[in-house]
C-alpha cells in the first residue's frame, strides 16, 4: 500500500516530466527553430562579411595611393566562352581567384545536361467482374534538359514501361528549341500536343499531378485526343498588358495509322495536321489560366472498307484552371468532330473533367484532399473511335512525404457502357522524382 501511494504521488510528476521531455524533443526537431538559428547565423555571416569589407577598405587606404585603384572586375565573359579554364593566379591573389572560381562555377556552361527521373508504384483493387487486384510498376520516366547555348535548348523524355514480357522504351518527347525572344520561340521534334491544359502541364510525371492518373480524355495510349505530335511548334507571349496572353501554333504529321500514335517515322498521308492554342494568365489574378485550342487533321486508316477509310478531324477544346493549391481547380472540355470524307457522315464526341483540391493548412501542409468528376461520350454512330463512354468520380488524398515524394490513395466509382454495372475501386500510389 505504501508503494502504491508512492507511485500515485510520483505519477503526476512523471507525466509532467514526460510532457516536458516531449516538448523538448519536439523543440529540437521543430523546423521553425532551426530556420531561426540558420537565419541568425546567416545574419552573423553577413555582418562579418561587412566587417571584412570595411577592414579591407581600411587596409587598402593605408597601403597608399597605388592600392586605391579598385580591383578590376572581371570582364563578363561571353556565355559561349564560359568553358575557358581559369588562369592560375599568383599565390597572394588567392582570395580573388577563389571568388572568381565561384563565379565561374555558376556561369552557364554549354552543353549543360540535366537529368531528372520520375517513378511510381501502384496498387489497385476493384469489384469489376474479371478484374485482378495487385501491384504494378508505373512508368519510369527520364527527363533530359540541356542548354546548347543561351538561345538553343534540347529537351527529351524517355519512359520505360512494364509489359507482360519485359519492358518497352518509348521516346515521349524529343525537342530542340531556338529562342528568338519571349515572343517567338520555334522548336522541332516530338511533343505533347498543346490541346487543353493537362497534356502539356504534367506530361508523364505522376508526382507532378495531384491525382494518381490522368483524366481519361488525355490518357497515355488513349485515342480521344492525339496525345503526341511530331512536327514544329512556334510559341511565345503576346504583348497584351494585363491579359497575359501566350500562344502555341504547330504543324505536324497528325495521327498515324494507329490513331493513338503520331507517325514518328513519317506521315501516312500528304496532309499535315495543325494545332493552335491561345491562353491567358491575367496579371491581376495570379494563379488563373484559361485558354482555347483547335486541332485539324486528316486521318487515313490502313484498312480500306466500303464505308471509307479517310476522315477529317476537328478538335476544339477549352480550359480554365486555378493553379494555387488553396484551392486548386482544373476544368477542361474537348469536342472531337469526325467527318467521313466518302459518306460525309459526321459524329461529335465530347469529354470533360472538373477537379478540385485543397492543400490543408495542418501537418506542415502535407495533405491535399481532392475530387474529380469526368465524363466521356462517344455516339453509337462514331466510325473512328471504339466506344469510350465513361462516367467517373474520384475522391482521394495526397500526402507529401517529402518535397520530392508522395503517397496517394483514391476511391473511384465508374461506369463504362450503359449496359455495364457501376464499379468501385481503391487505388494507391507512391510517386517521386529523383
Amino acid at each position, binding site marked *: 500500500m505504501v508503494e502504491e501511494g508512492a507511485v500515485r504521488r510520483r505519477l503526476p510528476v512523471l507525466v509532467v516530466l514526460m510532457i516536458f521531455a516531449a516538448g523538448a524533443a519536439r523543440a529540437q526537431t521543430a523546423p521553425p527553430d532551426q*530556420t531561426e538559428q*540558420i*537565419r541568425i547565423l*546567416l*545574419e552573423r*555571416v*553577413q555582418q562579418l*562579411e*561587412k566587417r571584412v*569589407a570595411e577592414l579591407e577598405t581600411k587596409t587598402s587606404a593605408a597601403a597608399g595611393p597605388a592600392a586605391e585603384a579598385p580591383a578590376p*572586375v*572581371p570582364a*563578363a*565573359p561571353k556565355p559561349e566562352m564560359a568553358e575557358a579554364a581559369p588562369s592560375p593566379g599568383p599565390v597572394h591573389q588567392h582570395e580573388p581567384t577563389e*571568388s*572568381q572560381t*565561384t*563565379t565561374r562555377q*555558376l*556561369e*552557364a556552361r554549354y552543353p*549543360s545536361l*540535366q537529368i*531528372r527521373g520520375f517513378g511510381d508504384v501502384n496498387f489497385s483493387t476493384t469489384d469489376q467482374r474479371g478484374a485482378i487486384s495487385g501491384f504494378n510498376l508505373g512508368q519510369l520516366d527520364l*527527363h533530359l*534538359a540541356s*542548354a546548347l547555348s*543561351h*538561345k538553343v*535548348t534540347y*529537351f527529351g523524355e524517355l519512359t520505360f514501361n512494364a509489359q507482360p514480357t519485359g519492358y518497352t522504351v518509348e521516346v515521349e*518527347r524529343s*525537342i530542340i*528549341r531556338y*529562342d*528568338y*525572344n*519571349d515572343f517567338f520561340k520555334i*522548336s522541332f521534334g516530338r511533343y505533347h500536343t498543346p490541346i487543353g491544359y493537362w497534356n*502539356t*502541364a*504534367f*506530361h508523364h*510525371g505522376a508526382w*507532378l499531378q495531384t491525382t494518381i492518373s490522368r483524366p481519361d480524355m488525355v490518357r497515355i495510349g488513349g485515342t480521344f485526343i492525339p496525345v503526341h505530335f511530331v512536327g514544329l511548334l512556334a510559341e511565345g*507571349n503576346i504583348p497584351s498588358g*494585363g491579359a*497575359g496572353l501566350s500562344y502555341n501554333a504547330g504543324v505536324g504529321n497528325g495521327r498515324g495509322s494507329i490513331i493513338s500514335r503520331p507517325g514518328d517515322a513519317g506521315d501516312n498521308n500528304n496532309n499535315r495536321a495543325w494545332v493552335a492554342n491561345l491562353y491567358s*494568365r491575367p*496579371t*491581376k489574378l*495570379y*494563379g488563373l489560366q484559361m485558354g482555347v485550342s483547335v486541332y485539324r487533321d486528316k486521318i487515313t486508316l490502313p484498312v480500306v472498307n466500303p464505308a471509307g477509310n479517310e476522315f477529317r478531324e476537328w478538335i476544339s477544346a477549352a480550359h480554365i484552371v486555378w493553379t*494555387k*493549391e488553396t484551392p486548386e481547380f482544373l476544368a477542361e472540355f474537348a469536342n472531337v468532330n469526325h467527318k467521313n470524307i466518302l459518306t460525309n457522315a459526321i459524329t461529335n464526341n465530347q469529354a470533360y473533367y472538373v477537379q478540385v483540391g485543397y492543400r490543408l493548412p495542418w501537418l506542415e*501542409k502535407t495533405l491535399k484532399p481532392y475530387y474529380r468528376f469526368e465524363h466521356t461520350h462517344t455516339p453509337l454512330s462514331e466510325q473512328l473511335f471504339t466506344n469510350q463512354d465513361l462516367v467517373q468520380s474520384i475522391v482521394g488524398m495526397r500526402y*507529401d512525404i517529402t*518535397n*520530392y515524394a508522395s503517397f496517394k490513395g483514391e476511391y473511384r466509382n465508374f461506369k463504362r457502357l450503359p449496359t455495364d454495372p457501376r464499379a468501385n475501386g481503391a487505388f494507391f500510389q507512391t510517386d517521386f*522524382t529523383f
Partner: protein
Amino acid sequence: MSPNMNATYKRVLKFLWRILWATVVLHSASTAQTSRGADVAVVVNSDTPVADLSLSEVRKVMLGERQYWNSKLPVVLLIRAPAARERDVVLRVIYQMSEAQFKQYWVAKIFRAEAASPPRIVYSNDMQYELLTALPGSIAFVDSRNIRAGVKVLRVDGHLPGEKDYPLR
C-alpha cells in the same frame, strides 16, 4: 446558480481571458519578428536595359515567363539559399509559394520544357554581388541596407526601397 459555482465560472473565464491575451501578445511579437528588417531591393546588372518594373512584371520574370530583357540579353535569375530573409520575402510576396511549392514549381517548369534551369542559388551577399557584376542580365534581391555600387536598383511599382508603398518588405 450557487455563489460557489459563480466563483468557479469567473475563475474559468479569467483563465481563458489570460490565455487569449497571452496568445495575442505572443502572436504580435512573432509577427513583429518576421516583419522586421529593411526592404528588399530588386537589383540588376548595371547593363540591364530596365529601371522600373511593376510587381507583376517582377513576378513574370521570377516565374520564368519573361526570359529575355531584349532579344540579345537573357534574364539570369539569382536567389538566396533557404533561410535567408531575402528569399523569404521573394517567396512570400512574389511567388506566393511555400519552399516546397517553389521547388516543385521549378521541377515542373523544366519538365514542361519551358526553362532549361532553375534560378541559381547564392549563399551570401558577396557571392550575389560578384555574380551580379559578372553576369549580364542577372537579377537578384538584396537587403536594402547592403546595397553596393556597381549594380542598378530597380523601382517596383514606381517606388524605391524605403519609400512608403514599396511592396517588397
